[in-house]
């Protein structure tokens, strides 16, 4: 072994450290028999890592990217990727920490809704890959005796994801997803988002008043009457009937039982 070869040269540690540091030259111990530059060759790997991670984030947060523009987003995503590289080989799960990063990212502080839009896009990705389950429709709910309605314990569909926001995140998401030319959105309007994928298509909608509190309470396993009480206590404008329509027909529910008895 050549004397110039430092201990561990060719090892992962030096290689890995330099992949995430654009200021570093190539690690020692690389050889380019064809006569090129080791730095240039190493930059292929480093560039591929950076471009790959940014592309993953761009695919998961397309609305955030459209809101701030490609250049701003890609640079912001590069910083996030360097700071928080994936911890798993399953890339569809990468980016869960991105909304928190965006919330604390000074150059984006003029867009206070951006982090919540990112949370909505995280929710969409989770819903897309969530476990499958047959949703429960109004017919199933209608079979319970009226006296038991308040005691129903509802299991939410595995794809249900809720995002509460003081900003109009669903309207922002919709126009930036569907419209070639975006329409104006009054961003100060609070919108609580429901994301659900009852079969194979994910749907995003705005919950009626108190819906976030109501569904969150149901998700903890409390019976329907108590979930309604909790929502009404937290949100004076809570609209029970509107929220029950959501519960019965949007594919939000996967199971329902009276107390401990299965459906």
């Amino acid at each position, binding site marked *: *072994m*050549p004397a110039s*070869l430092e201990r561990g*040269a*060719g*090892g*992962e*540690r030096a*290689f*890995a450290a330099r*992949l*995430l540091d654009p200021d570093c030259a*190539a690690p020692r*111990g*690389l*050889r*380019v*028999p*064809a*006569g*090129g*530059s*080791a730095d*240039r*060759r*190493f930059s*292929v*790997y480093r560039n*591929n*890592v950076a471009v*790959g*991670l940014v592309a*993953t984030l761009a695919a998961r947060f397309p609305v955030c990217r459209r809101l701030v523009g490609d250049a701003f987003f890609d640079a912001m995503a590069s910083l996030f990727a360097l700071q928080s*590289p*994936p*911890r*798993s*080989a*399953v*890339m*569809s799960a990468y980016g869960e920490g991105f909304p928190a990063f965006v919330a604390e990212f000074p150059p984006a502080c003029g867009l206070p809704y951006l982090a919540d839009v990112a949370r909505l896009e995280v929710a969409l990705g989770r*819903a*897309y*890959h*969530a*476990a*499958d389950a047959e949703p429960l429709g109004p017919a199933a709910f209608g079979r319970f005796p009226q006296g038991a309605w308040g005691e129903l314990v509802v299991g939410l569909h*595995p*794809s249900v994801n809720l995002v509460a926001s003081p900003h109009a995140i669903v309207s922002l998401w919709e126009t930036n997803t569907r419209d070639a030319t975006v329409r104006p959105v009054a961003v100060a309007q609070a919108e609580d988002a429901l994301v659900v*994928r009852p079969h*194979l298509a994910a749907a995003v909608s705005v919950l009626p008043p108190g819906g976030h509190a109501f569904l969150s309470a149901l998700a903890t396993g409390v019976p329907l009457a108590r979930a309604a009480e909790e929502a009404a206590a937290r949100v004076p404008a809570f609209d029970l009937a509107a929220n029950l329509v959501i519960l019965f027909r949007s594919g939000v529910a996967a199971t329902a039982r009276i107390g401990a008895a299965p459906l």
Partner: protein
Amino acid sequence: MQPPTMPPIPNPARPNGHGRVPARAGAGLKPEHYAEIVETRPDLGFFEIHAENYMGAGGPPLAWLTRIREAYPLSLHGVGLSIGGEGPLDAAHLDRLRELNRRFEPGLFSEHLAWSTHEGKYFNDLLPLPYNADTLARVVMHIDQVQTRLGRTMLLENPASYAEFEASTISEVDFLAEIAARSGCGLLLDVSNVYISGINNGRDPGAYLDAFPMRHVGEIHLSGYAEDEDGGIPLLIDAHVARVSDPVWPYYRRALARCGPVPTLIEWDNDVPAWAVLHADVRRADAVLREAAGLSDHARVA
């Protein structure tokens, strides 16, 4: 010399297990093509998936794959196991591979001679390792663990590389041959990678193929690279971004002349084209495979 046709002895590179993948050309399965494939049922030998893209709990990817698997043989290609890595294999990731293997019964399972994870960080890229006694022992140990956990043999793919290591003491071909001999795994011969690495590192792709242990080859990969340069020297990038590059085809024929017809994948991962464009390259590879089979038959008769 190698016989021009498949050896008659049992061969771990060509298992007889469920969902056997035929010695025809196949395509990488891309979400952009799901609907058209299900609707039109194109004629091809098999589809190959990147295992990690089907590791969610449910949803559209698994639903589409289930439908497509009903109609086609499947090859499962892992890109994130880090078999060449210094650290231990990720047991949770091995379990996910095992579950996919159980659920979809792929005829082939392959991974890379590369690493992608270091101390818990996953780089989402196939990174290179030196070839020496230490790394050989490590890779063989990891392959043993994979084959034991999955209960099947795997194929190991030769990488595309942009540089070599001073710490390497064994040629890549000898390294792969020794891995196959010690672990019992088969090999996935990526002919595009052979060409890319050859050009990038100033080595003769033909000599590489002539020395390759063809009896272990259970699958071939072909793809289109991107061209760049490094101070006036050509630098080829394994971009999977175009039709199979023209210079690769003669080397594909040269490989088939030695190993006989084997399942051949057309890889196209970036700038994914219309299905018809990808399928055209699949048919082109199929024609070369038929030609090789004819030559093999002729050689056998002679």
